[in-house]
């Protein structure tokens, strides 16, 4: 690959110091995501997969190592609107309407939301919330709120999209639906995606490669390439090859 990686972590270390307890969240973590690729990070609780995302976004400092997002430092990338982010739970501001929530990143970046009203309308359509522009989060279902947060993560047309278990709070049925929707939306955007998840199914269905992590200390144990062609159809969930791959990942996760 000639182009710089969209996400590049080299020898990143991060330790948390609690009360007389030191947790090595990331030990010599290396990760490279090619532009336009979809990567899933999977692993048990406490393996540092969320930390990868938080240090990449500059929400937390790392102790050592080098992080580059689209060839820039984290702070330059986030302040330049290069990145998009969706967290576990929708994390919407309850007093803002759907469109006002979607425009929040613009305001944080110091841009004028009024100049982006067309994009906001387009995103609302893309996530299938037409007619809910002025609804408050309290009036929406859990799945709808999650779709608002996906729309919000795309408002800056990010080159790099970070998602931390964006569907963690949803039930299995809703989650599958959202996976299919997310693939469609992502294919439309040409962005590089990094998805942090607990769900093996979700990881395999969505990603080009699945990065498997283990804890104590947090590290990458294996990277599994997913061969299925895109766009992937929901039927893939019941395909024997799909199951063979998820079983393989499950085994690696359990053996460590």
């Amino acid at each position, binding site marked *: 690959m000639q182009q710089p990686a969209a996400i590049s972590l080299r020898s990143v270390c991060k330790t948390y110091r609690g009360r007389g307890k030191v947790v090595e969240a990331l030990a010599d973590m290396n990760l490279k995501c090619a532009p336009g690729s979809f990567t899933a990070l999977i692993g048990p609780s406490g393996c540092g997969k969320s930390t990868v995302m938080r240090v990449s976004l500059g929400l937390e400092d790392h102790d050592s190592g080098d992080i580059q997002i689209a060839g820039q430092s984290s702070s330059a990338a986030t*302040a330049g609107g290069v990145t998009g*982010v969706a*967290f576990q739970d929708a994390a919407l501001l309850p007093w803002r309407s759907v469109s006002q929530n979607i425009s*929040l990143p613009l305001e*944080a970046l110091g841009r004028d939301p009024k100049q982006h009203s067309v994009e906001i309308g387009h995103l609302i359509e893309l996530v299938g919330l037409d007619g809910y522009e002025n609804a*408050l989060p309290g*009036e929406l279902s859990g799945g709808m*709120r999650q779709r608002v947060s996906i729309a919000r993560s795309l408002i800056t047309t990010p080159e790099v999209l970070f998602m931390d278990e964006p569907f963690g709070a949803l039930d299995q049925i809703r989650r599958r639906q959202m996976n299919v929707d997310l693939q469609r939306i992502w294919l439309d955007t040409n962005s590089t995606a990094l998805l942090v998840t607990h769900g093996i199914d979700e990881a395999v269905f969505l990603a080009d490669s699945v990065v498997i992590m283990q804890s104590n200390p947090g590290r990458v144990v294996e990277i599994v390439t997913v061969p299925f062609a895109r766009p992937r159809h929901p039927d893939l969930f019941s395909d024997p090859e799909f199951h063979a791959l998820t079983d393989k990942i499950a085994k690696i996760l359990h053996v460590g």
Partner: protein
Amino acid sequence: MSDSRFFATLRSVALRNVVILIAVWEFVGRMDWVAGGALPGLSEILIRFWVDRGDYPGHIWATVYASGLGFLIGNALAIAAGIAFVLSPLLMRLMRGVNIAVFALPPIAIAPILVLTLSGMAPRVTLAALGVYFVTMSATVVGLSQYDTRTADLVRAYGGGNWMVMRLVRLRGAVPDILSGLRIAAPNAVLGAILAEFGGGGRWGLGTYLLGSLGRGEPARLWGIGLMATLIAGLSYAVFAIISARTLGSTRSVTLNTAIPDTIDPSRSRPVRLLIFAGTLAAPFLLWWTFIRITGVPDLISKTPLGVFDYLFLSDTSHIARGKLLAALGQTLPIAGVGMIAGLSFAFLLAVSSRLFPGFIRAFMPVALVTQTMPLVALTPLLVLILGRGYSVTLWITISVTFFPAFVLLVQGINRVPQTVLDLPRAYGASAWKEMRMVSIPAAMPYLFAATRLTVPRALLGVMIAEWLATGTGLGNLLNQSRGYLDYGMIWTVASVSVVLSVTFYYIVLAIERRTLSHYGMQQVE
């Protein structure tokens, strides 16, 4: 919240009880059964009110003006301070001593000081502002601290700094808390203004009017003034209750955020922590000293911290001053302690047994809630009328100012226990007593401590007002006498001693509370 459901069902019962109460009141009043007519019937009070109607507008205006202006100034300061404290935990730590002192100071004790150093309406406005500062400041801090850390992360993930997070996420999120703070603060402003009117001259104001009418043996007029003060305080509370009900609606948070934002950095070295502690201790005195320098009142009248120390320990007459002070403390402290313990125990017993007599609590709770908006201590003259000028009036005032807030806090605390937990012992056939011992009493413990912290300054305030206005004993009387003798040193001494006492008691309760609660693995409540 089970709270709102519980209080909603109380409303219809409350209305019925109010009607019954008024009927009984009218009957008892007309028959002159209480202390030979000290409690007139409602109709007699209304008739008297009509007769006095020319007097009221001037007095009402003075009180409303002072409390309104104090409310505005105090809250502006409080909200600004709250924002500053949240942005800088170090500043919050340094100002902690000042905040606790403002919370704990008995307003009546500093009223004479304000009258000495300021002029015109300023003492009243200041006392009203002091009355609202702590409530609104802590509501602001709580509101700004309990923001959704995930939405804050979101703003940061797009390069937003602390101020951007404050503007986009925290300020708006704090509005419900600030509004509920303003609601509680509003009656406090009225109370502060009235207490300042008690403490220092002037011709207008409901407090002045009440005090002026005390010696005339016109119970109906005193009650009229008292009811008017209550009405104003209640209305100010209602205005903010309505505003917060309007603005909230469907904008409440939809998901529960479990992460607690970190506040204090424990990594500071020992000397730095000691320095911060010293700063915390020094800040109130520094503020006192600055206040005197700014007002520019001559040293003879206004005393700096050093001046008070000199008066009490170094000057020629210091032994006389100490003797007077100790004698007064000997009268004030025991009765404040007894009244507080009685009020708290009564509230505790009644609250934990609420499952034994649910009907009684349902009937009584509205009355207790109404008292939260009443300037209770301002009604002392009415109690003097009924109970005379003996010790019992002091005791009853102290009990009532501690009992009602403690009771409301405890019942609300017990109502936060999930129904399933309450039902569990019963499901295994436990008796009512056993259920109380296993669930209600432990559940109420954190709230009992919170209530104690809350009521320490009120108890002291209640006793001092009773002493000032009625019994002629103790600290309250010493304060009043010193005003008459122009004994400025003593006025400053009593004021600072009562603040120091109040803060000390606060910390003693806090220390016991921390030990006990951490021993039982319980959370402290604010």
